[in-house]
């Protein structure tokens, strides 16, 4: 009998102590953040284990813009991903790290990442949360130990409150840093407010030149077709203006950077890089993974006449760019006015919200 009473008391104690309500501790609640999907965009497959919350996004934004993440507290993520340049590096070909080291690939734009499956030009990161932490420890970027960043953040009172608001307690961990940065970057959208989006919505008209550029953009490069086409849409089609694939677009016959091949180890992947979105492309010069083209005119001229048909693993989608047309000439064979029309159309994809929306801006 005595043992039975003791057992019941023990069970009751366990039950009481495991009940947060008993001790006055309420369950952690965050404010859900609903991503406003622009009209015409496909539905994103958001990470189920990291639901967007206002608290998580605000913490992620603080981390994104805080130079404390770097070795000498001189650089933040935002240093190389400026909203004024479509979240790229201020027109730089390559970014410079904390100790003056120069990178080897152009800073990628950060928008509409909710629709992406792999990150970096070579796709080496399968999730945004993992991608977010890599530049911190990369020796040619922020060059800092992530665990040291954790220590630094724990000493900052403002982060204690921010982590508690986002995750229920003030514990700082690399995983939580990644999750918060993921939330902030998932919230960065471009779409719905560009001239092109207004044209699609029927509230704006394109100029004749822009309209021609739109037709060329979506036209097929086919010598049998009565109308010319620039064949852009195969890789940059749809509302997101990218197919998110990894492709070799024929920049070089001899590869100096093997891209995806360096990640997978497969020869068949040599020379493949992520197809970037063309939304906000006017903001994101220079272009290509190595920033070799300073202007959109140069990019279009490359596609018009410069695609290397002997480039290893040249994507079959590039077939319209290398075939012989009009006798001995190769490539798209677009006239100057047609090339200018393409540039005019691409400029309609500019969405100034990316540099004006306060959610995206530096909070410090």
């Amino acid at each position, binding site marked *: 009998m005595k043992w039975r009473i003791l057992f019941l008391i023990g069970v009751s104690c366990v039950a009481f102590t495991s009940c947060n309500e008993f001790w006055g501790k309420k369950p952690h609640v965050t404010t859900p953040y609903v991503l406003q999907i622009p009209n015409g965009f496909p*539905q994103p*497959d958001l990470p189920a284990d990291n639901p967007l919350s206002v608290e998580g996004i605000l913490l992620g934004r603080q981390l994104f813009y805080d130079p404390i993440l770097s070795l000498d507290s001189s650089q933040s993520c935002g240093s190389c991903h400026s909203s004024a340049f479509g979240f790229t590096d201020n027109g730089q070909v390559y970014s410079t790290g904390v100790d003056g080291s120069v990178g080897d690939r152009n800073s990628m734009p950060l928008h509409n990442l909710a629709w992406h499956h792999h990150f970096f030009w070579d796709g080496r990161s399968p999730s945004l949360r993992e991608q977010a932490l890599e530049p911190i420890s990369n020796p040619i970027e922020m060059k800092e130990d992530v665990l040291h960043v954790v220590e630094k953040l724990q000493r900052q009172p403002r982060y204690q409150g921010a982590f508690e608001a986002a995750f229920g307690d003030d514990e700082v961990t690399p995983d939580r840093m990644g999750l918060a940065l993921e939330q902030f970057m998932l919230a960065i959208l471009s779409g719905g407010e560009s001239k092109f989006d207004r044209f699609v919505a029927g509230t704006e008209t394109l100029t004749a030149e822009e309209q021609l550029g739109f037709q060329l953009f979506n036209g097929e490069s086919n010598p049998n077709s009565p109308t010319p086409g620039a064949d852009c849409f195969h890789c940059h*089609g749809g*509302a997101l203006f990218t197919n998110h*694939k990894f492709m070799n677009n024929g920049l070089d016959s001899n590869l100096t950077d093997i891209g995806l091949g360096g990640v997978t180890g497969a020869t068949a992947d040599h020379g493949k890089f992520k197809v970037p979105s063309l939304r906000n492309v006017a903001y994101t010069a220079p272009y290509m993974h190595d920033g070799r083209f300073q202007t959109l005119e140069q990019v279009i001229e490359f596609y018009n006449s410069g695609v290397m048909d002997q480039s290893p693993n040249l994507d*079959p989608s590039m077939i319209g760019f290398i075939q012989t047309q009009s006798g001995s000439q190769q490539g798209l064979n677009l006239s100057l006015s047609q090339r200018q029309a393409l540039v005019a159309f691409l400029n309609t994809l500019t969405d100034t919200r990316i540099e004006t929306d306060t959610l995206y801006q530096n909070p410090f």
Partner: protein
Amino acid sequence: MKKFVFSLAAALLVLTACDPDKKPEIVRLDVRIHPTFGSNADVVFNSQQLVMGLDTVKFTRADMIFSEFALITEQGARVDLRNEYAHISLPDKSTLSIPAVITPGQYAGFAFSIGLDSATNHGDPSIWSGPHPLNPNVNNLHWGWTGGYIFAAMEGYYQEGGAEKPWLYHIALMENKMDVVVMAPLDLTDHKTLTLNMDLEKFFKAVHDLSPVEDGDFSHSTFDNGLAHKLSENLAQSFSFESLVP
């Protein structure tokens, strides 16, 4: 006495619940597409050179949208499995599950379409949920602003004059929608996996003998002298029964 009646009832309940011969009221069917090439039992995408007559080809992409699944009864009737879609991307995404209600029984064949009905094909692609096979972000087969889906995107390289050149055939438009019927006895009294052989050589040879060198190395289904339509007729005849296992 009461105890006895209660025990008897309980025993009967247990016995009926444990009937080993009781068949499920519905079954699930998984369908796997196994790519081969003529006598090659497997196809290694991206690297394997495949010889067909005078042509040597390599496959890098075989993406398709499947819909309009149906079972063919032994009486020849068609049992439609409605509102099911699949995105097949060989070799990685080769299996689809059909969670629709399938009445257990003996069937004589399996049918599906490569492509979509007109309403779905030209409908708003943004309605599909994140992981849905018709979400353009999942399948990369939507034509974007020009509307409609590519039903099958087949790509690769071929050899000509000692050089490797790309080939690309994107089959789209309603007139190129493909209906596939594979006849074979199908014992679907329980959850099974049906493996269909897809002979990629037949994509070039089944009905029309086609060659990238002779007949053209690309088509987007327009201004192609009927090449995409011939390829669609070939593709529809490329599937055959391979196995049905629990």
